[in-house]
């Protein structure tokens, strides 16, 4: 059976949905950030799939994935540092404890 573009897009969609469900259901802040990173990974797989299958001569999708990777890393570092600053006051990992910045 031949693997088509839609197989890869389906995997990206499933990863994105797992990330969405996880970010809605979990209460731990760090697990919430991990779920967001899983969503971002699904989006990156979709970018690479379109770049590989749609006749991309300039590697546009590949370059965009590089930007998204850097942005995701910066976003995660900022979010974890904010969480650490707030954790020092409230001593809780539960996301419902953090109702104000």
């Amino acid at each position, binding site marked *: 059976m031949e693997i088509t573009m839609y197989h890869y897009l389906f*995997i990206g969609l499933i990863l994105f949905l797992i990330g969405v469900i996880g970010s809605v259901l979990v209460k731990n802040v760090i*697990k919430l950030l991990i*779920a967001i990173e899983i969503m971002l990974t699904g989006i990156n797989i979709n970018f690479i799939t379109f770049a590989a299958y749609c006749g991309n001569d300039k590697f*546009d999708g590949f370059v965009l*994935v590089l*930007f998204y*990777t*850097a942005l995701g890393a910066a976003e995660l570092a900022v979010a974890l540092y904010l969480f650490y600053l707030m*954790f020092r006051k409230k001593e809780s990992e539960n996301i419902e404890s953090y109702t104000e910045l």
Partner: protein
Amino acid sequence: MINNPVVFYIASFLIIGFALLSVFLKNIIYSLLCAVMVFFSASIFFYILGSEYNAIIQAAIYGLAIPVIIGLSIMFTTGKAKSRKESILPMIIFFACALFIMAFVSLVMLPDSFHVMELVPFNSYDVISEFARGIYIDYVWAFELLSLLLTIVIAGFTLFRIKGGKS
């Protein structure tokens, strides 16, 4: 690009299983380990889609650097909170099944259906030059904007640190 169904289905099984485990396991350390496996499986996807450069970047940043940051934050925070005990039996079963399937496929099925040297093109000079043209010519403003954002992040960290130290 490697258009092989065996590799695709193994990578799909691994990435979906580890993503589900990383979201639904209660212990945060096991969740982080499964997330690392998700990121490595995503780098496998990038590789079989023909983007070796992105696969290396994904494995280096998401597979190694980001788990270190998350692990440090877990060390600084979770030790003070209430610790949770959880059975690791589902994770062990999943790891065992994944290893068994990978061993079965790599030993029995893969040698007949997959020839690495024929399918993987090693034209890394073209790939790197295309990436460089994309970053430094076609998307130079996006690249500059990203650099500016990262500089703002570093400056923000420094300001937070200074204000936190004073308080």
